[in-house]
């Protein structure tokens, strides 16, 4: 027997803003549509593939770039919704960077998908032409492949004192670039499981919990092959880095079994976020940084867990493509984001793992400053955010890297994945 209150609540729920509408959540929500549109359809990448650069925004500045650099703004290709942005559409951390260094930056959300982005710059690199980008921030396996093919400029660490001073241990010497010769960590996170305990009715600890028939049609999966096979392999006791095609075939079978009973409502891209926040999904594969944002802005019930059998670890990386015209300015940019101040401004907005020691403390210090000013909301926000910007020991111990796939393996894995997802 529904009472009137429930109907009213339902209408409010449907029409009203989701959760507390802070300045940040408003920006984030209005931005999210663009994110989904951008990455689900990879419009940006389609445009990029056609040789048409999607529009970016330029931070105006006095002064000029380093002497050896070409004139014009530093060209930075990044993923959508991966930087701080204010009400006027400016990027505060970049504005501060330009004020400090005189280097203008043309920031463009040009990466919708690792493979696809690499595809758009590969031909130029192979022909020895500049790509037009001075700084790019793709995932680990792209760095490995580009370094192997000689497509990246070596970093000059003498120009990166902040990295030497502040880089966190977990952000250094990763498998795809053990000496950080070509790349520095930009931001990172974990792929694990998120759930709403009210809807699941129980605590979730493993990947197999996601496959519990009780959650048929309210469980969400990812459309990303590496994330999904990674988690499934871990649940079979196989570390993804050592997985053979046979192992992946078993992972496929396990997921097909789940498909047979309609376990997964869908194989989502970024839009799993809305389905989970709205309660359409009780449980889903999820990215850690998203769930931090969800708790703060959209649905405080939802929890993130690294499955007991293991989660997937990932990060995106600064790198300078071969032939970049503004290598000096690029180093200044990298160095700037390893300064505590710039890194904190960034982390206050995007909530992924920062590679910079001291950011957590600075977020808390700023919380105190907000409280002193009387901005209680902002102070609370920062206090909840602070513990999530650095991975815990436990999270680090139980998360695993992608396998470095050969082209042949990648084709085989993709074929197996297509059987699961279509």
């Amino acid at each position: 027997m529904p009472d009137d209150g429930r109907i009213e609540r339902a209408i409010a729920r449907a029409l009203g803003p989701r959760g507390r509408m802070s300045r940040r959540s408003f920006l984030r929500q209005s931005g999210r549509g663009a994110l989904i549109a951008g990455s689900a359809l990879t419009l940006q990448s389609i445009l990029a593939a056609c040789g048409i650069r999607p529009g970016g925004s330029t931070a105006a500045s006095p002064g000029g770039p380093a002497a050896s650099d070409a004139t014009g703004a530093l060209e930075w290709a990044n993923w959508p919704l991966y930087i701080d942005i204010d009400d006027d559409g400016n990027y505060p951390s970049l504005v501060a960077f330009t004020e400090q260094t005189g280097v203008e930056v043309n920031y463009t959300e040009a990466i919708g998908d690792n493979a696809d982005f690499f595809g758009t710059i590969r031909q130029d690199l192979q022909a020895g032409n500049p790509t037009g980008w001075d700084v790019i921030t793709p995932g680990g396996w792209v760095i490995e492949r580009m370094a192997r093919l000689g497509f990246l400029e070596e970093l000059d660490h003498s120009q990166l004192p902040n990295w030497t001073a502040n880089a966190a241990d977990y952000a250094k010497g990763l498998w795809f670039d053990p000496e950080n010769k070509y790349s520095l960590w930009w931001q990172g996170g974990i792929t694990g499981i998120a759930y709403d305990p009210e809807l699941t009715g129980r605590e979730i600890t493993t990947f197999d919990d996601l496959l519990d028939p009780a959650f048929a049609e309210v469980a969400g999966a990812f459309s990303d092959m590496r994330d999904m096979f990674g988690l499934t392999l871990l649940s079979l006791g196989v570390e993804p880095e050592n997985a053979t095609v046979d192992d992946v075939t078993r992972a496929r079978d396990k997921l097909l079994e789940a498909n047979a009973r309609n376990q997964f409502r869908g194989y989502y891209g970024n839009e799993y976020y809305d389905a989970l926040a709205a309660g359409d999904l009780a449980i889903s594969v999820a990215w850690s940084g998203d769930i931090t944002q969800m708790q703060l802005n959209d649905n405080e019930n939802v929890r993130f867990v690294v499955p007991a059998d293991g989660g997937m670890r990932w990060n995106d990386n600064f790198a300078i493509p071969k032939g970049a015209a503004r290598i000096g300015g690029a180093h200044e940019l990298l160095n700037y984001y390893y300064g505590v101040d710039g890194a904190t401004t960034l982390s206050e907005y995007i909530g992924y793992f920062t590679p910079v020691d001291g950011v957590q403390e600075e977020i808390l210090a700023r919380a105190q400053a907000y409280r002193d000013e009387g901005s209680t909301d902002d102070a609370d926000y920062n206090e909840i955010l602070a513990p999530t910007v650095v991975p815990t020991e436990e999270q680090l111990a139980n998360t695993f890297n992608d396998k470095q796939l050969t082209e042949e393996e990648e084709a085989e894995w993709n074929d197996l994945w297509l059987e699961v997802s279509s």
Partner: protein
Amino acid sequence: MGRRRLTPYLLLLPGGLWLLVFFAIPMAIMLSVSLQKGSLDTGYQLTWNFGIYPAVIGEFWEQFVRSAVYALTTTALAMLIGYPMAYTIAFHGGRLKTALLFVVILPFFVSFVIRTLNWRMVLSDNGIVFGTLKDAGMLDQSFHFLATPASVIFGLTYNFLPFMILPLYVALEKIDRRLIEAATDLYASRLQAFWRITFTLSLPGVVAGSLLTFIPAIGDFINAEVIGAGSPQVQMIGNIIQFKYINANDYPAAAALSFVLVIGVTILVAAYSRAVGTERLTT
């Protein structure tokens, strides 16, 4: 004299060039890509690998059939909804005609993708529609619509409905009302008059509308991805082609699938035009 004989060809030139540059050449490139082998690292070589065609059809026939079924259902639904709307606007719109037509195309002022995304919000399990019905006890709590085949067909129908209404309207608008009057004067019932005069004369609109709905619908991948949540139950051939191109970088298979789709649609459309008889429609 020679000049006059050349005129038709000169007039065809812009359209012909358009077809060559934007249809014939891309199709040839696609055909060539589909017959190549290789990888991103090593590059692609033309190996005349015709075997890829039976291979992709064998592997993805289910998605081809599903796309055709969805597109046909969409076309039928759009016709059922669109015909009465176009009829009403054309025959009873009066002074509001322009305003009503404007309302039909109004959704085009917002991007196709944004509108589809918004439907996902409206149709979510506890959203304004189903949440309200559930709270009123009219639906089971576990009911969901998104990520079902019906929801994808809904999305397709919504998105392509104006493409059905506009040509129908144009065809209905220009029907000479005196013909209907004459039919009723000659003792045709209103139904007979509609069927033998109005409907028959509106056939060009019916054909144009169904082609404009069916062709984009069969290749669509947005609705299956956004409203269908990428569920394996609703994957259309467009989703497979997208995955092959963008995620798997399997350009030959993607090109082969696209080519099969183009040929398949051409055959279906040719059969349809033949059945309806296009020669009658151009008058």
